[in-house]
């Protein structure tokens, strides 16, 4: 990819990140979210270390999931409403790449902060240090899948102005396996069982999503613009 082709992509990425920052640190939200969930769970279920440790990976994953989900609504919507989305098809821009960049910025804004601060959250939930590395690895492989699938769902529901509703319906069936394998890996580790099968499955899912989803998302966006 030569320089002139990369420039629009860089421009899009920079403006996405700038707008996220302008919005009072949109990447603050996932963190607030993470810690609120982490803080609320013990309040809800009582502060026993054993119980907390058991549910820690699940909780951190749910927090990551939700922080990504909350940001999905605006992923293409604001561009759609203000007329910048249709500009993607004016001339012959590589729309799939634009989609990938947008999803990348979604991941950077919502998932990365959660991953970076997972060690702190894990500490608060008494997760053993040894399991922490594995948990972060699953997050690193799994959250991009969330961004990809979420992006597809939000592209599909764009024109119907349905915001969250259908979105949830579409996302969950695709997301549940990721969650199962990820938390499964951590429990397996804690129980002393092998974790490689889980990780391989996750990687396979990621490769699959990465190769199929951007194409489908671009097509869905185009359909909605008509």
């Amino acid at each position, binding site marked *: 990819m030569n320089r002139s082709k990369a420039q629009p992509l860089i421009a899009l990425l920079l403006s996405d990140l700038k707008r996220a920052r302008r*919005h*009072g*640190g949109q990447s*603050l939200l996932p963190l*607030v979210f993470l810690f609120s969930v982490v*803080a609320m769970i*013990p*309040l809800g279920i009582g*502060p026993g270390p054993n119980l907390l440790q058991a549910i820690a990976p699940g909780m951190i994953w749910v927090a990551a999931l939700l922080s990504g989900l909350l940001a999905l609504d605006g992923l293409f919507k604001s561009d759609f409403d203000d007329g910048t989305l249709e500009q993607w098809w004016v001339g012959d821009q590589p729309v799939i790449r634009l989609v990938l960049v947008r999803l990348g910025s979604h991941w950077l804004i919502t998932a990365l902060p959660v991953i970076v601060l997972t060690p702190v959250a894990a500490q*608060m939930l008494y997760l053993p240090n040894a399991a922490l590395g594995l948990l972060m690895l699953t997050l690193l492989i799994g959250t991009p899948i969330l961004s990809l699938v979420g992006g597809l769902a939000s592209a599909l529901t764009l024109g119907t102005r349905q915001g969250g509703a259908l979105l949830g319906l579409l996302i969950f069936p695709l997301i549940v396996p990721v969650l199962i394998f990820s938390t499964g890996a951590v429990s397996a580790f804690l129980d002393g069982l092998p974790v490689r099968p889980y990780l391989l499955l996750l990687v396979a899912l990621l490769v699959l999503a990465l190769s199929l989803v951007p194409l489908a998302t671009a097509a869905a966006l185009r359909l909605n613009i008509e």
Partner: protein
Amino acid sequence: MWTQIKLAFHKLGSPLIFYRFAQTLIPWLWGLTLITLAAGLYQALFVVPPDYQQGDSYRILYIHVPAAWQAMATYIVMTILATITLIWRIRTAEIMAMTAAPIGAAFTLICLVTGAIWGRPMWGTYWAWDARLTSMLVLLFVYLGIMGLYAAFDDRRQGARIASILILVGVVNIPIIHFSVEWWTTLHQGSTINLFGPSTMDASMLPPLIWMTVAVKLMFGALLLQRARNELLDQDQRKKWVLEALRMGGHDS
């Protein structure tokens, strides 16, 4: 009559008058802060005897408790300022309410950190999800929310008014913090110091606490006036009164 009161209010809120007021008061406040702080720290570290149970670790109390009280007092001051902001739209009140938030957040943070450090030897853990600790954490979030909301608006006056609404709503948390030890069974100990009756704390431990509390109050006053003054100058950079005020300041020195 009513209009007269209103007029007096607005005069008090005039940036230039506020600037002069702050300018004269700030050095005094800092001076008194240093004196009381020195007295309080000296007594806390060298005069009061070690506790028969806790040894020396309890001395952190002399930071923890004044900070906790100031965190709450700051919020109450902000509530009053926010009320003035919303009813009379006085600009200096807006600015003071907003500049007080980070100070309050800082004291809250100090309280949380010292509490956590103290908790380790006392309760065997840095943190627990009990009512007082949680409600204090909530206070920190409320402060952060106020700061975030204010920062999110392009028009600072609009931001100040909107954040003031949040201040008024968030004040509900203050009694919760204070009474949490009575309403729930908590790790945190109940009130031992009573302003209007006999305290259950040993009398010999009290004086440094009073000194420190006064010092922290004075420090808050100095910080608040200083920050508000700077914010005012910053916002009005190009206004006539600023040039005037700065010129006069120049003559003084």
